[in-house]
């Protein structure tokens, strides 16, 4: 069958960098942060202690980002990981503090519980056929509810050394223990993605679920596996968090879900499935940690941190999408964009909304009563 000769025979530059584009987005943003901080606050930002700090922050999210890469690549999503982390480590804490379980076994039990919760998520999604988003959202309520039922407002604190070692230990001298754990999970994830059936099927399921089904792949089973992996990694993160703070309570880890999803997507894993990048997820996790650290170092007010995070996430995803877009000749600049009748209509809508705002404000100022600042 004839190969199409309309393409050039030499792979072009863009074809060559294609496989790496996934993390070019976050990499460019990371570079931007590094350059900016190099000018603005080099001494404080680039200290060893600060780099360790960034890595420590990032480490917590690495195992989850690894697992979430698999979940998202299969066109799934998991909104329950914060609760899974909280519930499994609350139980671990109770086992250690109330029942005198050895730390190693309590930690293993927490991992198993995480796996079990992941399994339940997976079964709800594949057997009950509840869409991922709503299924894990509902299970999030369930797990968080259980954590609260078990622990109420109790803060369980002061754990054996094993737990704090996992959460913030330095005993490996060259890198903090949690960073090593995070990097190992990512390395395992990389291996799984490239060299195991599970990884291969993850991509094929996300790429074309029907085709995968027809090829004889147990689609549902492998989707369940991804959730089991996710649950286990969430539990691991829960243990790391417990160790890091040397305390745990039922309301812990409220923002795990969104942070991890943002990191993975910023790293170039596609929410539409089929395109995975573990290295990108690492870059995404680092980017978010570096950004927050940079904002704190720059003494940006807390509330602006939230704004800045949102903007950085959008910019890096948009940058990545733009880099990846192939058909870029058709657009042709601002003028052409305005020629487009759709864009003109949208512009009109914008003008309408803003106009209404201005008119209303003017009317109000004229007819409005006196200011009345009594809160």
């Amino acid at each position, binding site marked *: *069958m*004839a*190969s*199409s000769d309309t*393409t050039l*025979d030499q*792979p072009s530059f863009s*074809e060559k960098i*294609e496989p790496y584009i996934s993390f070019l987005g976050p990499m460019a943003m990371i570079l931007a942060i590094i350059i900016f901080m190099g000018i603005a606050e080099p001494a404080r930002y680039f200290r060893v202690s600060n780099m360790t700090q960034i890595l420590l922050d990032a480490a917590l999210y690495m195992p989850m980002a690894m697992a979430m890469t698999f979940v998202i690549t299969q066109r799934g999503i998991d909104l329950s990981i914060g609760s899974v982390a909280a519930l499994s480590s609350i139980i671990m804490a109770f086992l250690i503090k109330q029942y005198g379980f050895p730390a190693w076994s309590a930690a293993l039990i927490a991992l198993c519980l995480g796996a079990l919760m992941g399994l339940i998520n997976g079964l709800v999604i594949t057997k009950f056929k509840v869409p991922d988003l709503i299924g894990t959202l509902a299970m999030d309520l369930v797990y968080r509810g259980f954590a609260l039922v078990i622990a109420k407002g109790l803060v369980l604190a002061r754990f054996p050394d094993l737990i704090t070692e996992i959460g913030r230990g330095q005993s490996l001298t060259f890198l903090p223990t949690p960073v090593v754990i995070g990097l190992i999970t990512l390395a395992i994830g990389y*291996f799984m993605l*490239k*060299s*195991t*059936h599970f*990884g*291969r099927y993850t*991509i*094929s399921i*996300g*790429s*074309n679920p*029907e*085709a*995968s*089904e*027809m*090829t*004889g*792949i*147990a689609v549902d089973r492998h989707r369940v596996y991804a959730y089991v992996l996710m649950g286990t990694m969430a539990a691991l993160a829960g243990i790391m968090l417990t160790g890091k703070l040397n305390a745990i309570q039922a309301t812990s880890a409220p923002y795990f879900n969104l942070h991890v999803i943002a990191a993975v997507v910023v790293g170039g894993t596609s929410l539409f499935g*089929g*395109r995975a990048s573990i290295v990108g997820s690492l870059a995404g996790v680092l980017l978010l940690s570096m950004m927050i650290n940079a904002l704190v170092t720059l003494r940006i007010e807390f509330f602006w941190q939230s704004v800045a995070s949102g903007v950085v996430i959008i910019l890096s995803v948009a940058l990545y999408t733009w880099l990846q877009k192939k058909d870029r000749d058709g657009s042709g600049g601002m003028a052409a964009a305005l020629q487009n009748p759709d864009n003109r209509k949208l512009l009109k809508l914008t003008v309408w909304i803003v106009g209404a705002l201005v008119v209303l404000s003017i009317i109000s100022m004229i007819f409005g009563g006196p200011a009345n600042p009594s809160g």
Partner: protein
Amino acid sequence: MASQEPIIAMHGIVKRFGGVVALNNVDLEAYPGEVLAIVGDNGAGKSTLIKILTGVYQPTEGKITLDGKPFQMASHSDAIENGIDAVYQNLAIADHLTPAENLFLGAELTKSIAGFTALDNKRMKAEATRVLKDRLGVQLKSMDVPTESLSGGQRQAVAIARAVRHDDLRVLVMDEPTAALGPQETARTLELIKALKAQGLAIIVISHSLDDVFEVSDRIHVQRRGQCAGVVKTAETSNEEVLGMIVGTKTAA
């Protein structure tokens, strides 16, 4: 041309989807070294029939025999394990995987690293290149790009190559393999079918193109409204007769 014993046979197959009766009491036999064509109008049940044959669907009623012995398929893997594979109408290709990865999808080659079973990507790539070249005569510019960047014909080649990569393949089912292909690639595919037949495979081809059917097939199975309207020897029939059977104005001789 066909030997006496069918490799695989379907008896009295019925398939219902809720209220829809897609197949109603259909029989079918596939002999080694023979090409069986299935023709019929849209919605006649052709795709459903072969999905049952390849374990993708389970029949509501009826049974299947393999080498004369009753044969129960719980999933498509069961079919593959017994040397039955298919190229489906909507190419079952994962766009984000490379051709080699697609070729071995669901039947990856593995090696052992330090006690762990790992995918042997290198060997799969080499094998895939070989299968594409030797069995199909197709050489891709690069084996490392995602399959989505290939042309329709190249994708088709990958899909066929996946089915024929098994050395123990005995039955190959193809659902409209030439529908999306240009003349040159259609010719190529028909040649390939003949070559595979010469290797002793039982081949089942669904096609809307009676020209193609008459060129490659030995027997023609006509589906009509979920039922078999008759099976005729290609050498003993004519374009008009088959058309008549499809439309319902003639019945099998």
